[in-house]
């Protein structure tokens, strides 16, 4: 009986949460840069240290009353004033902080996505000990000198391929006295591309991975590189892919298309039938990297995307991006 009773409450709670987010924290989805933390969205609450400080002041006040110490009152009230002043300083340390977004470099899944935020301080005084905490990931502490800006890269673990957002980021400061915490929540409209993590020890690109449209790969000529296969003792040492061998991979033999100008196709459909979609993406990512390392022209064919054979860093990135975004709606 009881579990079912709890059910209707959950959407109400979610709605309340949503309302609080929208109304109090002014959060309505990712917001574009630049953000300036207006006074309306900077909040101040005492910290635990602040509560201890308040308790100390109350004790001092009681002591002053009890022993009739006029200077004791003065000390108590001076400390109380210090508490009030520290609220304003903490608030001032955060309010009107400008935030702009830097460029996020793509990372492989399983790595750490870095979201660079450019914090700009138009005030002449420094802003000290600003702590930025993403919903997931390590907090970062940064000082912003007066009239300057500072870049802080928030590190968020990249756990899924595709576009990753930093989510809600709490910007807070307890400076100067640690008695109060001024904080604000932002949800930057940033995204970081997360490539599929390349499969470890992926099998070499089979020479047979040629396009099915008839342009057959040459039979082991030596004009144009066309792919790699496992090393056989009879292969010429000149054709060994030493670069990848140096990285500890198994010995591979470079294959060259004999004057046909052919290229390697990395093809979704030619991979082992038993592989899942993600495993295919992982393998293709590994093969893209391998092809890049081998200096090969390669094309990529996955459902919905065909990238004509090319070489170069831009092509590699385009391929990895296509792999990262496989299956995601183009709207995102």
């Amino acid at each position, binding site marked *: 009986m009881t579990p079912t009773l709890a059910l209707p409450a959950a959407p109400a709670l979610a709605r309340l949460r949503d309302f609080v987010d929208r109304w109090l924290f002014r959060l309505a989805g990712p917001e574009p840069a630049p953000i300036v933390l207006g*006074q309306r969205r900077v909040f101040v609450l005492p910290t635990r240290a602040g509560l201890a400080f308040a308790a100390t002041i109350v004790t001092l006040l009681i002591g002053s009353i009890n022993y*009739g110490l006029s*200077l004791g009152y*003065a000390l108590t009230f001076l400390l109380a004033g210090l508490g009030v002043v520290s609220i304003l300083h903490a608030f001032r340390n955060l*309010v009107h902080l400008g935030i702009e977004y830097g460029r996020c470099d793509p990372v492989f899944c399983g790595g750490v996505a870095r979201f660079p935020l450019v914090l700009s301080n138009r005030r002449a005084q420094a802003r000290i000990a600003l702590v930025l905490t993403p919903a997931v990931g390590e907090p970062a502490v940064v000082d912003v000198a007066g009239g300057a800006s500072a*870049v802080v890269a928030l590190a968020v673990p990249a756990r899924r391929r595709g576009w990753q957002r930093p989510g809600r980021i709490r910007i807070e400061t307890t400076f100067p006295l640690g008695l109060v915490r001024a904080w604000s929540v932002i949800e930057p409209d940033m995204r970081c591309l997360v490539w599929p993590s390349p499969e470890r020890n992926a099998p070499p690109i089979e020479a047979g991975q040629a396009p099915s449209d008839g342009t057959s790969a040459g039979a082991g000529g030596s004009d144009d590189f066309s792919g790699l296969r496992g090393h056989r003792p009879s292969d010429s040492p000149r054709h060994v892919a030493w670069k990848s061998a140096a990285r500890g991979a198994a010995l591979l033999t470079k294959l060259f298309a004999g004057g046909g100008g052919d290229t390697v196709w990395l093809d979704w459909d030619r991979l082992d039938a038993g592989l899942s979609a993600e495993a295919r993406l992982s393998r293709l990512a590994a093969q893209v990297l391998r092809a890049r390392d081998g200096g090969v022209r390669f094309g990529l064919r996955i459902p919905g995307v065909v990238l004509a054979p090319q070489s170069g860093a831009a092509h590699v990135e385009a391929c990895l991006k296509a792999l990262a975004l496989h299956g995601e709606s183009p709207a995102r």
Partner: protein
Amino acid sequence: MANPRRAEPGACVSPRQAIWLLAASAAVVAPLIVKLPAVIGVPSGILFVYAAWLWARGGRLPPPWLLAILVAVATAAIAIAYRSAFGREPGVAMLLAFLALKLLELRTRRDGFTVALLCYFLLLALLFDRQGPGVAAYAVAGVVLVTAAVLQIARDGQPARATIERALVMTAQAVPFMLVFFVLFPRVQGPLWGLPKDAFSAMSGLSDTMTPGSIGELSLSGALAFRVKFAGAPPAQRDLYWRGPVLTRFDGRTWRAARSTPHDRIPWEPAGKAVEYVVTLEPHNQRWLFALELPGLVPEAAVMTSEFQLLARTPVHQRALYPMRSWLEASAGAAEPEATLGEARRLPARSNPRSRMLASRWRATAADDSGVIAQALAHFRREPFVYTLTPPVLGKEAIDEFLFGTRRGFCEHYAGAFVFLMRAAGVPARVVTGYQGGEINPVDSYLVVRQSDAHAWAEVWLAGRGWTRIDPTAAVAPSRIERGIAAALPAGDPLPFLMRSELDWLRPLRFRWEAMGNAWDQWVIGYTAARQRELFGRLGMQDADWRAIGGAMGALLAVMLSAFGAWALHEHARQDAVAGAWSAFSRKMSRLGLARRPHEGPTDYARRIGAAAPRLAGPAAELAGLYAQLRYGRGAGPGGSREFVRRVRSFRLRP
């Protein structure tokens, strides 16, 4: 790129932060530790030095079990040394010990903050004993230093100078709040609960007994007894007899107060001119209140005894302020009951035979009591009596030895001997102690009465007149009464430092300094519930209740908070005007379909406008240039933002 660092309260304390905390603790603790009993003070001091040494050379902090043992030992030592773990002094000792131990287990920032809180708390202990401006200044410096240490805990590695500056600024900003709270926060007359016995340590001052030498000791003290502000011109110096304890019982050596019963009304009629004044009495932990003879009203929470002495209902532990009116020419006690007079004639049997013989000779030759008194005073004047602070020690028959042997004495010798002689002659007499004279400070025209003005005189009962003051010291050393003790003592007698005549050139300086001290005492230390009421009355809030006061306090705090809030937001207003004008420009352009795109910088934007609407190219480029200079450039004059706003406002799409 910023170096991400942990900022949680659990983060470690760096040696640099520890040094700041140690310095703040040392400043707070040093004046306290010297007052502790050696058995507590010395080990605490050693612990502090040990902690400083460990941090300075980066040693390992002691293990928790050792600290646990130290805590137990410290607690036990304090409990044994003070025979109690409660009360003010053991409390302070305990906090000191804990502070020292906390410095030995300073691991996290939270520990550091705890140390700072202990320091803030111990600053109050500084104020228990002394509340002068010097101590206040020291406490404020302590607040600044501890605050600087807290700043260092909040963010490691800030430069020392910037930290101290920030702490100073914050403390200075806290002062307005302190003032508002100090003046308006409703004062409660303490104590809230029974104070432990050690709340008030012994203080110098008169006592309720008198033996030869007891007042002489006081004469060496320049300490303040009370201050008096006369409403009109102060009376002559020789009329300034501040009545204190009346001593009736005598056991041959010591004079003691009799048990007295309170009067419910002033038992005499006013005579002559009234003297109006306000007394600010220093705390002396006794009940008596001082007033000129004879006091004409009874202050709040006080009574008048049958010996015409004013007594507060509770001991005066804090500076007390009371208005007073005295009738200098009144006399009292004409209808004294026989029992009282009988007690005022009683002497211990068979002591001081020579004095008794002298008295009976006077009795035989004098016509009446007044004649006896006149003969006695003539005797003191005629014989070679010396008024001195360093009389020889007297033996068992003290009065005889003094009158016929040493003949050197201080006021208590003369008063005691005189009353003895009177009683031996059958005249009711008693000793009155109190203060005589005082010094007018020309700076603030307060009369300052010190412990060195302590005095003893005699009071005899005359039929038809009642109790009459006789001061035998005046017969021996008239200048004591006319000009004060410094004038009356022979050269070479010890005197309070600043009262010596060779330091006369310092006197104007001393007066100024003491007037400042008085102002401090009256308005800072003496700002009690009564003073607060008086102040509100003066400000036109006669029956200000806590609601009115709370309202006033709230309003003032709100004003101050808005002022500070405006300060916190200050820079923004100027910046925002520029940003607002820039958006307004974009809005104007949007009518031509040329709204600024979010990513567009000012130069690109102006170029796009110029391409789309060539006639606006000039003004747009000008505005964009100005905006870029205000936002990203240097040296846009102070009027620059205003100029920019003005130009945007006057910008027209069509000429």
